[in-house]
């Protein structure tokens, strides 16, 4: 995440001060990120040869089609004029971070070898809520390469309880014990 993206995200976050506006901007940014990352639109969105008129036309079309708010529409035009459209994914990420911080919540990824049931998810969420002292928004992923167990990523930290890692540690200990 670049410093430029953080500055733009902070500006947008401060502009969206009305009640409910930040939630709406966050939803729209998430939708917009998915759209501009699509195979149809990504080449045009990231094309540096577009003229200012073409960029403005593209943004206007997106605003119209996705029914984006007035504030986000003006922000996108501003990005288009500054030739910063490619920074949108980073800006969305930074905005989401600012929004989460303002609501005292954080996001976590739970990766497990097998799907987690709701009870287990609740227990894990409660444990990490207690650990971070923030509301934890969870995204779950199933990764068979873990072999078993679970890996949690939260606030830049990784809590690794996977069987794959335990096997690797065990192997490293055995090899290390042999060399000493």
């Amino acid at each position, binding site marked *: 995440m670049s410093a430029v993206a953080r500055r733009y995200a902070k500006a947008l976050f401060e502009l969206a001060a009305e009640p409910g506006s930040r939630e709406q901007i966050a939803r729209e940014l998430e939708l917009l990120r998915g759209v501009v990352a699509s195979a149809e639109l990504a080449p045009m969105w990231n094309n540096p040869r577009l003229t200012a008129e073409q960029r403005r036309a593209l943004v206007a079309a997106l605003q119209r089609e996705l029914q984006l708010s007035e504030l986000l529409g003006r922000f996108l035009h501003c990005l288009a004029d500054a030739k910063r459209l490619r920074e949108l994914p980073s800006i969305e990420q930074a905005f989401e971070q600012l929004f989460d911080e303002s609501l005292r919540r954080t996001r976590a990824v739970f990766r*497990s*070898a*097998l799907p*987690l049931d709701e009870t*287990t998810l609740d*227990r*894990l969420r409660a*444990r*990490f809520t*207690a*650990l971070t002292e923030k509301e934890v928004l969870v995204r779950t992923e199933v990764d*068979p390469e873990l*072999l*078993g*167990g*679970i890996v*949690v990523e939260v606030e830049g930290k990784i*809590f690794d*309880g996977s*069987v*794959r890692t335990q*096997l*690797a540690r*065990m*192997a490293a200990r*055995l*090899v290390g014990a*042999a*060399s000493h």
Partner: protein
Amino acid sequence: MSRFRMGFASGLALLALAPAWAAAPSHGEQAHGHGPPWATLFFTVINFLIFVWLLARYVWPQMRLWLRERHTAVVSELETAAKLREEAERLRAQWAERLARVEQEVATLRQSLLADLERERQRVLAEAEKVAAAIRHDAERQAVAELRRLEEELRAELVLRAQELARVWVRNNWTAADQQRAVEEFLRQVPS
């Protein structure tokens, strides 16, 4: 010396007078018939005396000086010859002594040489033994290191194989109950 001088002078006088005696009868016979020719004898004697005086005055001192120098030189040469002879005798005796000691010195030298050779042989042997010990030690150390390396490689290979087998086994046999136990263990390990 005076006797020599007197004898020498008498000899010379007889030699000078001899012609006078021989010539005297012929003069007498011519002048007076018989009787000695006194005048001739007188002048002959005078001549002889002058001759003797000249010899004694000028010849004899030079001759005596020459004889004295000759005597001194002969004595000096005799002394030098005696000294040289003594030196030669001394050198001869010295060399004779050395020759007498040569065999002993040769024997001593031979023993010394043999002792040096023996010491050198011992030194070379000790050096060779030291080098051999160092080579043996290095070889042993290298062998141990190589053995350890092979052991580590083998162990690493075994661990890798075991890990792979464990992965396959877990992948095929991991159940929901195992997953639940793993999550419980994970929750115990996460700091609260």
